[in-house]
């Protein structure tokens, strides 16, 4: 804007007073000087006319009515609930459904303490999460073989509960012990214990016998006591003890504790 000086007012000053002049709050000598400058200045005069015209154009714009659903949408997106007053204003059906009555009771009973919580619960994402959790639990129960129909047969008497408890415990222990892995681990542990323990000392008499056997090079099988068990049942073995007086007397002189026993074997 060119800097003109008319009637002691510069264009910059004119520009500063323009808004007040349009608002009608300029008065006295300042208003006179302002008007004189507008008449004289080729730039500021048209500017004043344009600003006035622009303001008059803007007066043609009337307020627009927001959509009727705007308040409801705002309340639903902020608090998540429709308030009591909105429900009174809104056209309501003749008889509220059960769900609507429950909603009304919840919104009335929970406000203001649980208003935030209830608003969160009513969010679609929460409902989605809840649905997914319910679905997962249902699948898990069906895989485990739990049927809802079985729950109706459950007895809640203390004795029955105790019985169920011990039954379940026993089943769990049985199941645990029957697991192949557990069984193998236990058997390995037993083997390890057996290997770690020292071998039992052999009887003293065994040593000379073994030596004798080692010296025996006849390749004859060892004469064992159990050879009789391999014989057929029709081989009878008879044993008898002669305890005649003459013999007893002869031995009694040497060693009274020794009893002479002679065995007769007869194979039938």
């Amino acid at each position, binding site marked *: 804007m060119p800097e003109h000086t008319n009637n002691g007012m510069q264009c910059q000053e004119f*520009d*500063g007073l*323009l*808004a007040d002049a*349009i608002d009608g709050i300029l008065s006295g000598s300042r208003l006179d000087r302002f008007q004189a400058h507008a008449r004289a200045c080729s730039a500021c005069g048209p*500017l004043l006319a*344009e*600003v*006035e*015209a*622009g*303001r008059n*154009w*803007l*007066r*043609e*714009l*009337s*307020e*627009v*009515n*927001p*959509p009727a659903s*705007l*308040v409801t*949408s*705002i*309340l639903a*997106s*902020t*608090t998540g*609930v429709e*308030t*009591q*007053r*909105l429900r009174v204003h809104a056209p309501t059906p003749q008889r509220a459904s059960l769900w609507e009555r429950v909603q009304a009771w919840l919104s009335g009973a929970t*406000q*203001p*303490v649980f*208003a*935030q919580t209830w608003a969160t619960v009513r969010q679609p994402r929460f409902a989605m999460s809840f649905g997914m959790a319910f679905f997962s639990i249902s699948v898990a129960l069906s895989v485990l073989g739990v049927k809802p129909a079985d729950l109706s047969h459950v007895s809640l008497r203390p004795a029955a509960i105790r019985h169920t408890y011990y039954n379940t415990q026993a089943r769990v222990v049985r199941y645990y012990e029957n697991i192949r892995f557990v069984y193998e681990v236990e058997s390995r542990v037993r083997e390890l214990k057996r290997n770690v323990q020292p071998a039992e000392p052999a009887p003293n008499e065994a040593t000379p016998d073994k030596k004798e056997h080692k010296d025996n090079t006849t390749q004859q099988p060892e004469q064992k006591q159990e050879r009789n068990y391999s014989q057929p049942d029709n081989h009878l073995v008879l044993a008898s003890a002669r305890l005649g007086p003459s013999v007893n007397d002869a031995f009694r002189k040497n060693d009274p504790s020794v009893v002479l026993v002679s065995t007769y074997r007869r194979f039938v």
Partner: protein
Amino acid sequence: MEDVHVTAMLVRRCVAGDAAAWEEIVQTYNRRIYNICYRFAGSGNDAEDLTQEVFIKMYRTLPSYDASKGAFVTWVTTITRNLLVDHFRKTKQDRVTDSLDAPVSAQEDAQPLSEQIHDQSAPPDASVRSRELGETVHAALGKLSPELREAVILRDLQDLDYREIATVLKVPEGTVKSRINRGRAELARLLQRTYRQVM
């Protein structure tokens, strides 16, 4: 103008979880915010979405409102203006840089603005002419730069005083006055050019 104490009490009740207080705030300010958004964004659908966003933001930040720092209406308008600026920046790439000869909206069958004004073969009644004039001015308002547009809307359509506008726009009062004058003058030039084409 709002009663400061009543509004402060309303805000306190709302922060304490009183849903009725929040509803009262929504009922009181939704029209004002919708009009600002409508005049700035230009379309009813955008204005509805933006108004909803403003209230969501307001609901979240309501505890931060300090009555000693300014009127509630100034605080609300500042939130609205900031959101509108964000929206303007986001949609800058998508916006079509059409002129006054371009269609005003999709509903008007791609008829240029000058033809809409010129078409006076059958003189419409006063209400229709007033509506058409309003649409023309609204279209011209959309051609202003955002800085001039917001200043003009807040002053001439929302009747905020210069100090409140300076608070909302975070600029000195002198700048506010200058922007308002330039906005009005620019609007007048746009409309005069349109009518010159028509006549």
